[in-house]
């Protein structure tokens, strides 16, 4: 689809040349590479070159005990590690028939939503980074750090929390944590108008983002795009609403649908969902029941998951994060497959989307699709 008139006429017999976006490039979102075949400043063909972060998780997990893997899974998606832990634990719990206490489920929701906010803020930084507005990353990533402080207090780790455990979470909420969370939410809310002024009302940003990388609802469904990107194209689909897990069915929140399908819509979608996440967190603070934070499961060496297979999924800030877990009844998983949300957009749809795009829009597209290489490289 031609979104902007290009001055380069097609009759111009320029030679094609290859351009590497990444791995060492400020425009790419991580250690990943697109090899672009360029015609002037217009992209003619795209070859994704993944595997720079391939660590063979699926193989390593087969070699380790069920709970040992909890140290591995957060490393699969670095900006938002908690979805991995929760999805993996949920798969185990379904197979082993473990009932998680309500208290623990609320904690899980809080962790997930905090991680989502952190990830969205990281994304705001990406908006600024690709368009040259360096105030945005300085603000957003600085604010994200306050969330990391809370995580650190709750779990003992800043980035890799390793906090979830089959049957619940590893330790209870410390005293005073909820009040601190409440203060943080107040702060974040007070910051939102400033972000709006800085990013979303900024005419330059709007012009750079609007009409870039238009994605229709049909295309999004066809190409396996999930999460905020799908909703930005106007499809009303959020796993938290449609197939609720944990206690999302007890919480009152809305799923905003922007529906314009371009990069600006995708950025705005995240900004609106951030507000909903704050709403969910506030409800969790009020509603969280008392009770045990976990149920005891057998110790790691003797924890056997009954044979079977199950696909568990969690709505992450990038889309559907799924764990397909196969057990043969042993102390180690037989096979774990990880479905990263960026897989379809980053490795397959990119080819279609970038065709004909101007080179300066490529980083914008990459960051607004929130392509996170570690989750498909695994």
């Amino acid at each position: 689809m031609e979104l902007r008139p290009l001055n380069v006429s097609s009759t111009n017999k320029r030679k094609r040349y290859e351009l590497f976006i990444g791995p060492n490039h400020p425009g790419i979102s991580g250690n990943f590479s697109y090899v672009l075949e360029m015609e002037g400043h217009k992209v003619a063909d795209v070859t994704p070159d993944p595997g720079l972060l391939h660590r063979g998780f699926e193989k390593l997990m087969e070699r380790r005990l069920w709970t040992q893997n909890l140290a591995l899974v957060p490393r699969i998606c670095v900006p938002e590690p908690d979805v991995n832990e929760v999805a993996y634990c949920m798969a185990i719990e379904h197979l082993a028939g473990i009932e998680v206490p309500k208290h623990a489920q609320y904690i899980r929701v809080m962790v997930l939503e905090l991680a989502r906010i952190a990830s969205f803020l990281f994304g705001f930084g990406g908006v600024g980074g690709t368009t040259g507005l360096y105030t945005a990353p300085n603000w957003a990533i600085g604010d994200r750090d306050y969330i990391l402080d809370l995580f650190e207090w709750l779990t003992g780790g800043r980035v890799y929390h390793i906090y979830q455990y089959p049957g619940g979470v590893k330790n209870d909420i410390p005293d005073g944590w909820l009040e601190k969370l409440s203060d943080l939410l107040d702060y974040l809310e007070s910051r939102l108008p400033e972000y709006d002024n800085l990013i979303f009302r900024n005419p330059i940003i709007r012009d750079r983002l609007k009409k870039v990388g238009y994605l229709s609802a049909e295309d999004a469904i066809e190409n396996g795009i999930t999460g905020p990107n799908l909703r930005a194209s106007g499809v009303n689909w959020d796993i938290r609403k449609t197939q609720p897990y944990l206690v999302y069915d007890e919480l009152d929140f809305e799923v905003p649908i922007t529906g314009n399908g371009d990069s600006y819509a995708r950025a705005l979608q995240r900004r609106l969902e951030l507000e909903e996440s704050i709403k969910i967190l506030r409800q969790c603070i009020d509603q969280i029941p008392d009770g045990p934070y976990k149920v005891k499961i057998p110790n790691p060496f003797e924890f056997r998951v009954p044979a079977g297979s199950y696909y568990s999924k969690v709505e992450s800030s990038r889309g559907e994060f799924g764990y397909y877990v196969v057990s043969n009844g042993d102390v180690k998983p037989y096979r774990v497959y990880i479905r990263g949300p960026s897989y379809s957009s980053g490795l397959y749809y990119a080819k279609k989307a970038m065709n004909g795009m101007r080179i300066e829009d490529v980083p914008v597209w990459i960051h607004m699709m929130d392509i996170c290489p570690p989750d498909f490289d695994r």
Partner: protein
Amino acid sequence: MLKYVKTLNSMGLKARPLGDWEFEVLTPKERVAETLSYLKGSGFETFIHLMCVDWIDDGEFELVYNVESYGEAIQALVKTRIPREKPSMMTMMNLWGLCQVYEREIHEFFGIKFEGNPNLEQFFLENWMDLPPLRKDFDTKEFSEELFGFKEDESHGIKAPERIEYK
């Protein structure tokens, strides 16, 4: 969901629910395309993933196609087993173009050939010559020790450099 399970069972396939919003269909290799196109026709329009399990004791690979219907909020796992010896499978690219990358990945990690897929080159790995790494008989620890391990005699036939003294 139950209506799909019923219809699929009446088609001679084994289907059963796995969870609240998930059911599995076991099909023979030849009927995968038929099953998937039936499902796509009835609203399962999103292709979520294709993955493979190496059942080495049974001598089989299991392929799992995961498709989702946004309209009814259910997910279908279409499972098929193919022999482990000279494994091959037809591509599903004509149903979902997305299958191209998934099939390329599985070819790389399990060595399954997908007939009709134009591009099965190496994807995540570079210059890989060993067994496909996700097969059960590939020993990653041994490989790692062999290739990256630190051995005392690591001179490659080059004369050991002299100690360099810095001030």
